């Protein structure tokens, strides 16, 4: 066993941390406040080579491994959940289905531009009445000549409506079988396709500087070349994509926890009450000790899960565990970090306030904590 990161992984961590501190931290608060998606930061992340970083070079990627990608997400989330979300959703959910299930032609058509930071891609699974129950999908597609015609809607689609979002993969029902089961099929729908409308969602508590969309399909026609994978393979495509997505949500939890912990540690050493820094009170010192311990647990379990994936071993159970654990560590650590900040932790002037809000999604998005427990228990044969 070797628990040491390679020189490259360490350099990637330093580089992304440096970038996040230099470029993102100074503007994160304002973007959050205005709920503004930053094309500029997205382009800069693209220049850095963060989009599609795990794809082979021929598709415009960097040929890096899962761990490198996860470290990048962790370091972005340490500073800002919104930018981390834009990257993680794009890399795991946007690019994922195209890369793992697309034909060579589809990959060459879409992936290179999706590695630049100048084009984003959405993952159209969730619907108003199909959240945890993704098989409750109501969006339909039927064949008509050389086309498929899609009708229905999707909700909470990250990177789905901003100008540079050039399309989404969309799960549809293509048939209801005699036994009542549905046949699911995934299609590629490009921006600008007649009948495809995107509406940006506002009023979010968290990830306010990221793009969240509703997608509407009204007799939306796509050519048959836009079929992703095979007819009937839709659910498998989308759910296996979520296995990968769980790793990046876990990384966001880990990064958020690390960021909140560092802020709390610093604040506790500066803030004085009863004549000494509050870190000198055991009640706070023990809180910080627990936070540090949980973060270490979360980090090494997540890294091991990346190792499983990079070594082509099964990792679905561990991915659910890592997502569940890291997101709950983020919740606990952010909560205590606010507590250590006292009244100031409730103010927008303090970054810990934003982390506290941003982490809340992590126990809900890409499979709620309850669904993760369901996935894990199924792996236990229950």
């Amino acid at each position: 066993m070797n628990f040491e990161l390679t020189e490259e992984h360490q350099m990637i961590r330093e580089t992304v941390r440096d970038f996040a501190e230099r470029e993102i931290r100074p503007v994160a608060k304002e973007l959050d406040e205005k709920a503004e998606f930053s094309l500029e930061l997205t382009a800069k992340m693209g220049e850095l080579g963060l989009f599609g970083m795990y794809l082979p070079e021929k598709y415009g990627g960097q040929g890096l491994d899962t761990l490198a990608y996860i470290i990048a997400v962790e370091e972005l989330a340490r500073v800002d959940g919104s930018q981390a979300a834009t990257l993680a959703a794009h890399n795991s959910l946007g690019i994922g289905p195209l890369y793992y299930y697309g034909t060579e032609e589809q990959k060459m058509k879409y992936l290179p531009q999706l590695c630049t930071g100048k084009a984003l891609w959405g993952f159209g699974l969730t619907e108003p009445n199909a959240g945890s129950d993704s098989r409750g999908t109501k969006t339909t597609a039927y064949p008509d000549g050389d086309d498929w015609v899609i009708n229905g809607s999707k909700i909470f689609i990250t990177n789905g409506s901003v100008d540079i979002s050039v399309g989404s993969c969309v799960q549809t029902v293509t048939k209801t079988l005699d036994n009542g089961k549905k046949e699911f099929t995934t299609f590629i729908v490009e921006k600008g396709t007649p009948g495809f409308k995107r509406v940006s969602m506002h009023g979010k508590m968290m990830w306010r500087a990221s793009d969240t969309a509703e997608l509407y399909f009204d007799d939306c026609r796509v050519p048959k070349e836009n079929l992703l994978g095979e007819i009937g393979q839709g659910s498998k495509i989308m759910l296996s994509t979520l296995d990968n997505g769980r790793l990046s949500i876990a990384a966001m939890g880990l990064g958020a926890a690390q960021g909140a912990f560092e802020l709390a540690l610093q604040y506790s050493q500066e803030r004085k009450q009863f004549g000494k820094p509050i870190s000198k009170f055991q009640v706070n010192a023990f809180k910080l000790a627990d936070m540090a311990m949980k973060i270490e647990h979360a980090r090494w379990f997540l890294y091991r899960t990346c190792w499983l994936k990079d070594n082509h071993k099964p990792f679905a159970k561990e991915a659910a565990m890592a997502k569940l654990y890291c997101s709950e560590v983020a919740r606990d650590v952010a909560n205590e970090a606010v507590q250590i900040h006292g009244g100031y932790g409730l103010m927008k002037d303090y970054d810990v306030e934003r982390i506290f809000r941003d982490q809340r999604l992590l126990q809900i998005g890409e499979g709620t904590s309850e669904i993760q427990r369901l996935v894990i228990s199924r792996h236990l044969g229950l």
Partner: protein
Amino acid sequence: MKILVCISNVPDTTTKIKLTADQSAVDLANVQWIINPWDELALTRALELKETSGGKIEKVTVMTVGTQSAEPTMRKALAIGADDAIRVNAEPQDAYFTAQQIAHALKDEHYDIILCGIESSDYNGSAMGNMLSEFMELPAVSSVSNIEIDGDQVKVNREIPGGYEVVEPELPFVAVVQKGIAKEPRIPSMRGIMMARRKPLKVVEPAEAEALTEFVRYEPPKPKAACKMVDADNVEELVELLHNEAKII
């Protein structure tokens, strides 16, 4: 044309400096190492010059005197964009030692412009660049805040009181660079990091060289004294303290 940038491997500037128990050395355990900030700016300018030279500058080489532990820092310089690297395999002892090592390693190499940051952020000696030019018997320009290449001529801004003078040194020469040489250091891209692994990093064995400096003992600066609060109405006490304790009136 070729540019060489001398790089010092230094502790991160935010490191909390601790001394060993006997105060004979700085405790370097758990220290994060970085490219000396002045050298990083020198490298940035070298890369800018190369990129805008239309192929005239064929390569930018980075060089350090350091043990194996300096390699991550050299890889970072390669990731930022240097073409190749040279490491003289020796623990740097002082400026005199380091300058001799570099001069010796460059005996059979030719570089047109050699850039050195004005000082390293650990020992702040500000001596290496000029010593190097002396050992190499090359002209040196110090306090350099800008370098431009104009045809075959290199123009160098040298800071002087109240402004700067423009110098056109004969090539090859050593430039000791300072504030203004580049705007801000570059962040390597993921591709740069991947490519750094494949770029050549040559290790050269050190020459016989002596150091002229002996480190006797380190002393940490005195901790800041606590602030004494005096009641606003108690002028007498304030005067008494300023007079007898602070001894400034």
